[in-house]
Every structure is written in C-alpha cells, then in structure tokens.
C-alpha cells in the first residue's frame, strides 16, 4: 500500500466532503447515514442516495406533467410530489433539495403555477448537481479503498 497516495486521497476526500457540508449541499442527516455504513454494508449510502435520485427523477417528471397545462393544474398531485421529495431529501441529508421543496410547497399552497414551475426547475437542478457531487465523492472513496486505505470518518462539529 502506498501510504503517501492513500494519505493524499484521504485528505482530498476529507476536504471535498467538508466543502459539500459548508456549501450547504449536505446536512447532518448525511452524517447520520454514513454512521450506518460499515464493512457489512459498505455501499449503504451510495444505495440510498441512488434510490433518492431515482425518486427525484420520477416525481419531478410527474409534477411536470401536472403543471403542464395552465388551465388545468393538478395542485394536489404537485403537493403530494413536493411532500414526497421533501421527506426523502430530508432523510438523506440533501439540504439544498429540501430547501427548494420548502419554497415549492409555499407556491403550491397558494396555487402559484409560475412559482411552482420555477421551483420545479430549481429542484431538478439541485438534485442533479448533488448527484454529480456525490458521484465524485464515492469515486474518491473507491480510490482510497483500492489503494488499500480506509475511508476517513469526518465529524462536522
């Protein structure tokens, strides 16, 4: 094992994950999820976020359909979708996505179609952004493991 390489990768990982918290992409719940990962379930976090992103794609698509016709918006469906996304984003620690959902709900409550469309676009952007960021993070993890190192535990106090 090349300890210098492992050390560099670990530092890179540490810096990257800290930046994700600092930029508000992730919150404490993501830390909680990482606690649940171990040698027995090494892919737990990746699996859960993968489910989350699949969920995002589907729900966003459904909401898009509901918001399509200006004269016939199914706000009940949209509200249900926002509720679902807010819940799942909260469960995985996807802070920015969750925050957009909060604003989204407000638009939905007052039946503001334009506002909803803006929020829809934003939530789509945010989940895709997070997906890319986390993929990079997981790739770093893989590199560390392949180089024979262990994934650092990062505490965000």
């Amino acid at each position, binding site marked *: 094992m090349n300890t210098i390489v492992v050390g560099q990768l670990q530092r890179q990982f540490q810096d990257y994950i800290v930046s994700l918290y600092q930029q508000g992409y992730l919150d404490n719940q993501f830390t909680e999820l990482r606690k649940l990962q171990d040698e027995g379930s090494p892919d737990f976090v990746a699996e859960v976020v*993968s489910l989350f992103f699949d969920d995002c794609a589907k729900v966003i698509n459904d909401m898009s359909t509901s918001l399509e016709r200006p004269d016939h918006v199914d706000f009940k469906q949209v509200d249900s979708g926002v509720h679902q996304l807010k819940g799942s984003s909260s469960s995985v620690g996807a802070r920015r996505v969750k925050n957009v959902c909060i604003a989204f709900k407000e638009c939905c409550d007052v039946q503001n179609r334009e506002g909803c469309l803006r929020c829809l676009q934003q939530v789509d952007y945010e989940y895709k952004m997070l997906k890319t960021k986390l993929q990079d993070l997981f790739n770093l993890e893989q590199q560390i493991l392949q180089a024979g190192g262990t994934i650092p535990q990062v505490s965000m106090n």
Partner: protein
Amino acid sequence: MALKDLSSSSSSELHVLAVDDSFVDRKVIERLLKISACKVTTVESGTRALQYLGLDKGSSGLKDLKVNLIVTDYSMPGLTGYELLKKIKESSAFREIPVVIMSSENIQPRIEQCMVEGAEDFLLKPVKLADVKRIKELIMRGGEAKEGLTKSPSPKRILQNDIDSSPSSSSSLISSSQDVSSLDDDTPSSKRMKLEPS
C-alpha cells in the same frame, strides 16, 4: 408483552415491522434497525401491514408470527399511521405490541392524538440512530414506565434537534431481515450509483 415474546422465541432479537410508503425511508429505517440488532420486516402501507399481521378481512395470518415492535410513518396514502395504530390497538392479538409513530411534521395535536390512542412514542423524521436506540431500550425494558399508569398523553421525548451526539456503538451483527413489500424487490444488494454523463 414484548419481554414475554422475547423469552419464548428462539431468537433474542427484536422483530420490528416497519411501515412507510417512502422507498428511501424504508431503506433507512431498515438499516437503522438492523444496525441496532433487530430483525426487520418492511412494508409500504398500512394495508400491507394488516395483511402481514393477518388482521385484514379476518384472515388468520402466520400462527407463529412474533412482532415485538411496529414502527410506522404517519402520513401514508390509504390507511394513515394513526388509523393503523387504532386497528392494532383494537385487535386482541396485537394490542400489546408497542407502536411508534414517525412523522416529518411536528404537529402537537397529531402527536397527542397518537399518544392517547396508545402509541408508545412519536419520532420526528429524519430518524437518527440515537432515536432507534432509545426506542429499542424502551421496548427491551418492557414498558416499565407504563406500569400502573393509564395512557400517557405525552411522549417521552419529541425534541428532535437535541444535540445528542452520543456516538452509536454500531454493532454490525448479522441480523436477519425480511422484506415483504412487493415494491422493495428492485434493488440488487450491491448496487452502486452509476456514473452518467451530466
């Protein structure tokens, strides 16, 4: 009574039935429970939970079914967590099983309603490891605190944002789990996130 079940069953694990319509949340709660050395069965609706318990349409269900705890989301389409709670408490076979309600919304009347109906506790989502450990301890003690008391209207603790940073001694015991949700079968166990061109 939970303790009686434990001593008579061959396994010393708590068997928890987790009910949640969110796929993501089911995955998380399942892991939280397994890492806390519980056997877990997840279902996606109140109706499915009743089917599993054998409480729907008068079916008898599995004779030797031992469920020590039911954890259910509140807001679900169809049967809500509250309605599920009521049905369980109305059943002579299952009314002794502790039921914990989870919700993303901290609505006091809702919480009280559930506690009055006999819920063991109320967890605010997102659920953390510390919450599960606390619930498990509560159940393992066999609800001693309730002895001699009538149904208490207030849960033991609902403050979600406590700085409860007690590190969890996560025991990776190989706990058995059983998923009976029809929708849960899609995910292969070692699925990695795929790299897609963005």
